[in-house]
């Protein structure tokens, strides 16, 4: 789950990392009042996406009127398909230099990774691609935690070699940055972050390190134990059916095609979509009922059939943990109840498949295809005919 700047920065501040004074505003008429408290400020769109500045979602204001006008301009604006509903009004900062700092979950080292760059304020993917010598990756032993002096020793050469920092004592600055990185790690660790990033981590004209932006993504699997924080987060933007599915604890993704896909397990569901595409069809959705959800076939099918674009349906079950007889019974029940006017094609194998095939024959007078490919080819062909 994403946490926008306004929700992430207070976590940094509470841990002792300096952030500019700010106020969150949802109504442009409150912006002038915020200016009165904060003085010259920056009005920043709060949306769960990057590149806000380029989209015109960040504007400076030097008077109460300007603040109000900027807020009025930004609220309601659309940035990368997100409509701006609120802005963060933040004190202007006098930036001397910019750094980059982040902590994230790293599959390669199977542990936390601290990242630092002496080139802050830029797209870090570009730095990694074009100037990797400016990007430092420091794996952390999760049991021991980060070692401040080790971090300082690692980053000092980068600072010393960069002439932008010639006015600083490299060792002192490295110590201060290491201090901030260790604090950042603590915030990451306490809040189950999968990514916590400060870009830029600015050195202001007073010489102090300050977080001018912050990106915080919480590990979705940890939402259940971070209940105090989660109301501050921005849930993934879901369409009607995706939202209905999430209420049933099912994962549904709209894909825009006309061949409905119902399978068990993430791998088999993706594969069914791939093979529909391979045979020239367009999958309508990702919808899986694997794992503990294998008893939810009826609900899943009802949800899927709410999509009028669907011209045919392929049901692809390969039972391991999920019993195909239980899943097939769910599909059959929904089918008999709704009596949909679209063709359906089955491929059923694995745990419980004999019972499942019998059920299909008895209740729907239908047969499972011998292979997944046959069922999918039939569904693709049927969708094509019904489009014509």
């Amino acid at each position, binding site marked *: 789950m994403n946490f926008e700047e306004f929700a992430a920065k207070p976590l940094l501040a509470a841990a002792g990392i300096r952030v500019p004074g700010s106020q969150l505003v949802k109504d442009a008429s409150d912006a002038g009042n915020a200016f009165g408290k904060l003085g010259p400020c920056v009005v920043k769109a709060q949306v769960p996406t990057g590149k806000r500045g380029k989209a015109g979602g960040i504007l400076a204001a030097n008077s109460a009127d300007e603040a109000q006008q900027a807020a009025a301009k930004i609220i309601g604006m659309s940035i990368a398909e997100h409509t701006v509903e609120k802005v963060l009004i933040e004190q202007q900062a006098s930036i001397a230099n910019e750094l980059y700092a982040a902590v994230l979950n790293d599959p390669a080292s*199977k542990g936390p990774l601290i990242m630092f760059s002496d080139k802050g304020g830029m797209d870090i993917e570009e730095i990694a691609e074009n100037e990797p010598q400016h990007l430092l990756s420091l794996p952390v032993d999760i049991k021991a935690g980060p070692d401040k002096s080790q971090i300082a020793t690692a980053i000092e050469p980068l600072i010393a070699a960069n002439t932008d920092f010639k006015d600083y004592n490299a060792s002192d600055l490295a110590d201060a940055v290491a201090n901030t990185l260790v604090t950042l790690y603590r915030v990451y660790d306490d809040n189950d972050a999968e990514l916590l990033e400060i870009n830029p981590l600015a050195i202001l004209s007073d010489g102090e390190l300050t977080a001018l932006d912050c990106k915080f993504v919480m590990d979705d699997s940890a939402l259940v134990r971070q209940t105090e924080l989660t109301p501050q987060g921005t849930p993934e933007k879901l369409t009607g059916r995706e939202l209905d599915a999430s209420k049933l604890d099912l994962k549904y993704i709209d894909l825009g095609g006309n061949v409905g896909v119902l399978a068990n397990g993430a791998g088999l569901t993706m594969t069914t979509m791939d093979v529909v595409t391979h045979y020239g069809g367009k999958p309508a959705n*990702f919808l899986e009922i694997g794992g503990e959800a294998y008893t939810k076939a009826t609900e899943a099918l009802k949800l899927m059939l709410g999509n009028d674009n669907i011209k045919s349906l392929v049901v692809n079950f390969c039972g391991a943990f999920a019993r195909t007889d239980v899943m097939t019974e769910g599909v059959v029940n929904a089918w008999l109840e709704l009596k949909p006017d679209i063709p359906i094609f089955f491929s059923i*194998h694995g745990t419980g498949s004999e019972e499942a095939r019998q059920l299909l024959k008895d209740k729907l007078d239908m047969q499972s295809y011998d292979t*997944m490919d046959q069922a999918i080819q039939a569904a693709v062909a049927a969708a094509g005919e019904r489009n014509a």
Partner: protein
Amino acid sequence: MIIRNHEKLLVQGITGKQGSFWTDRMQAYGTQVVGGVNPKKAGTECCGVPVFASAQDAASKGCEFDVSVLFIPPLGAKAAASDAIAAGCKKVVCLTEHIPVRDVMYMMAEARDNDARIVGPNTAGLVTPGECFVGFMPAFESSIFQPGNIGIISRSGSLGTLMCLNTVQAGFGQSAFVGIGGDPIIGTTTLDALTALDNDSKTEGVVIVGEIGGSMEEAAAEYAATMKKPVIAAFIAGGSSPPGKKMGHAGAIVMGNRGTYQSKQKALEKAGVEVLKTPSDIGAALKASGLSGL
């Protein structure tokens, strides 16, 4: 990570609905289950074996085990895995999905510090056809699993099952099925499994079943180019998935240019591994491999 029938298994969470259901099946197939764990039911029996308060309690009472399997809910998995490792267990199979990644990383550190191996999390398990299995795989379905010479590695349980089915339909059997799990951080990678199968005397060829997200298939491809045995083919799920969305598995996500289908396809093809358009094509690839079938 190839399971053998001389290995003794402890089942953590044995008394639960799934724990007891699958323990019955594992025992019926030939897996040596020597005990189970449930702190609230210590001293009782389940599936014909004693139940202990913890893995360490089992070890202290003389119950020897080589492998532990976790039928444990997400927030209890870290403690359960740590318990098994503290009890001296060197192989932990973690079936649980949706464990917070912070906990997974801690489990990985525990395993590293104690020379233990974790398979998973979010794996469907391990099968050695004709010998035994651990987890929730339909090892007992003869249409899906037959003893043979093909090693199969899969991130997904359901798709791995389909690939095993296709293998048997093509007239081949499996030396081992290694489910490595669908999480972004896992204890046993595609490369680890590939290395083990390369060194396994019963395995003559390997099939890799991967999916979008991460870079495990790319790392495995480098090894595939140098290994003793052929990688007969690979299938990568998710080529038609939209970027930026978690496709059911927490690990199956394309972010920017990372974790793409194209990157994996390119790496595998460069290593001389055929990347299948559909899992059904494995039959033709196996028949063309020159290896002997059932």
